[in-house]
C-alpha cells in the first residue's frame, strides 16, 4: 500500500540541530506484570555512534531495542529517534499520544535484525529485501531490485538472490536479513543477538558483515550481543545492563579491562572465562 506518508519524515517537532542525539530515551519504563524490564531508563545515542549492550539474560537488553522498533510500547517515558518523538506528538505545545501515521513516519528511521532472522519464507532472498522499499518507500520494482542486488552482493550473496530462505544456511539467512534491514536506509540499525541462533562456524561470516558496516557507514547502531570480542572491536561505548537499568557504561577498552562495578566484574568474568 502506498500511503501518502511514504516519504514523510516530518515529526511534528521542529527540526533539531545535528548535535542532538539520534536516539534519546528519557525515563522509559516497561514492565511485564511484576517484572520491571526497563526501569526509568535514560539513554542518549549520538549520530553514528555504535553502542553495544551487554548484560545477563532476562535483564531487558532486548527490550531496549524492541521499544525503539515499536515492538513493545513503553509504559511511560519519552523516546525520540532522529529528532522526532516515537510514541508522542506535539499538539499545541503538549506531548500527546502519537497517531499511527506519525509512528510510521518516525519508525521509518529505524530497522532491526532479529535473533531468529524472521525472513519471509514464501519470498526469495531478493523479494525479502525488495518488499520494504517497494511497499514502504514507494520505490518501483526495478529500483528496489537493483538496490537489493547491490546489498545482497555486499553481504556476499550475489549467487543466492533467487533462493528461498529454506535453501539457505543460518548465516546466509542472517545476511539476507541484514540486507533487508539496510534496504530501508535506516538511520538507526538495531541488532538483537543476531548470532545467538547460529552454528558456531557461521558466526564469523555474519559478524564480518556487521563489522564492515560499522567501519564504513555513519549509521547509528545499537547491538545486543554476547560476542565480547566483537563488542570490543566495534563499540564506541558499551552499556552494562542489569535489573532494568544501565549500571555501567564506558568505552570498550575501559569496561573490559577495568570494570567499575562488582556486577560488571562478575558478569564479564562469567562470560569471558567459561
Amino acid at each position, binding site marked *: *500500500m502506498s500511503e501518502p506518508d511514504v516519504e514523510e519524515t516530518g515529526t511534528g517537532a521542529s527540526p533539531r540541530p545535528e548535535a542532538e542525539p539520534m536516539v534519546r530515551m528519557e525515563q522509559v519504563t516497561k514492565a511485564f506484570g511484576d517484572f520491571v524490564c526497563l526501569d526509568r531508563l535514560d539513554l542518549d545515542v549520538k549520530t553514528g555512534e555504535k553502542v553495544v549492550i551487554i548484560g545477563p539474560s532476562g535483564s531487558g537488553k532486548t527490550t531496549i531495542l524492541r521499544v525503539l*522498533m515499536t515492538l513493545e510500547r513503553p509504559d511511560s517515558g519519552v523516546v525520540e529517534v532522529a529528532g522526532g518523538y516515537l510514541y508522542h506528538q506535539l499538539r499545541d505545545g503538549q506531548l500527546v499520544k502519537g497517531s499511527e501515521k506519525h509512528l510510521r513516519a518516525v519508525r521509518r528511521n529505524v530497522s532491526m535484525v532479529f535473533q531468529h*532472522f524472521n525472513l*519471509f519464507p*514464501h519470498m526469495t532472498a531478493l523479494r525479502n529485501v525488495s*518488499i520494504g522499499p517497494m511497499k514502504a518507500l514507494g520505490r518501483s520494482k526495478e529500483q528496489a531490485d537493483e538496490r537489493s542486488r547491490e546489498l545482497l552482493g555486499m553481504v556476499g550473496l550475489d549467487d543466492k538472490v533467487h533462493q528461498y530462505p529454506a535453501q*539457505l544456511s543460518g548465516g546466509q539467512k542472517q545476511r539476507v*536479513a541484514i540486507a533487508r534491514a539496510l534496504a530501508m536506509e535506516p538511520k538507526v540499525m538495531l541488532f538483537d543477538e543476531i548470532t545467538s541462533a547460529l552454528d558456531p562456524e557461521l558466526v564469523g561470516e555474519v559478524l564480518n558483515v556487521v563489522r564492515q558496516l560499522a567501519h564504513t557507514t555513519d549509521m547509528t547502531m545499537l547491538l545486543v550481543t554476547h560476542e565480547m570480542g566483537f563488542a570490543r572491536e566495534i563499540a564506541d561505548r558499551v552499556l552494562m545492563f542489569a535489573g532494568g537499568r544501565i549500571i555501567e557504561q564506558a568505552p570498550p577498552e575501559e569496561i573490559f579491562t577495568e570494570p567499575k562495578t562488582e556486577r560488571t566484574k562478575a558478569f564479564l568474568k562469567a562470560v569471558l572465562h567459561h
Partner: protein
Amino acid sequence: MNVHPARLLAQVDGPKAWDWDFAWEIVPDLLSALWVTVQATVVGVVLAMVLGLVFAIARRSTIRLISWPVAVFIEFVRSTPLLVQLFFLFFVLPDLGVVLSGFVAGALGLGIHYACYTSESYRAGIESVDRGQWEAAQAINLTATTTWRSVILPQAIPTVIPALGNYLVAMFKDAPLLSTITVLELVGEAKRIQAVTFRPTEAFTLAGVLFLAVSIPSAALVRYLERRFRYERA
C-alpha cells in the same frame, strides 16, 4: 423368515426393483438438478471463503466494537442448525422487507453458515504464522494492510486449504437442505420424481451416485491443491 409385508407385495405384483429404462429416462432431469446443487455450492464456497477470512481478521481486531459482534455472530451461527438459518432467510426476511429467491437465500445461507466454520480455520492458519513475521514486517515499516496481504496471508492460507477443501465437500452434501426452501436441487428433484412416479429406487440411487461422482473428484482436487501449496518453512 422375517420379511416386511410391503416388500412381499412389491415382489408379487409391484414393479421391478430396478428398471434401467426408467433410470436412463430420469438422468437428464437429475443432471440439471445436480447443476443447481453445484451452482449453489460454488456460490456458497466463494462466500464462505471470502466472508470467513473477513470474519477471522475482524475477530483479531483490537477494536472491541468490531471483534465482539463478529465473535457473537459466529458463535450464534455455529450453535444453530443450517436448516433454521435457511428458513429464517427465506421465510422470515420477507416479513422484514427483504425478499430473496430460494436459490439466493440458499446459497447465502450455506455461505454464511460455513463462513463461521472457515473463519475458525483461517484463524488457526493465521495463528500458525510465527510472531517474528509480524515483527519483521514492522521492522521494514509495512502498513497493516500490506503486512496482511504480502506477509501473513500468503503463509496462513496454504495451511488452511485442507480444511477449506473439507468444508467444500461438506457444503456440497448440505446443499440438499435447499430443497426445503423450494430449490429443486438434486435430492429435491429425486423426491419430486419419486412423488410423481412412485419409484424411489432409481431416483434416490442415482442421486447418491451423482453426489459421489462430484464429491470424489472434488476431494481429489483438494488433495492436489494441498500438495501444490505446500512449501518448506524457514
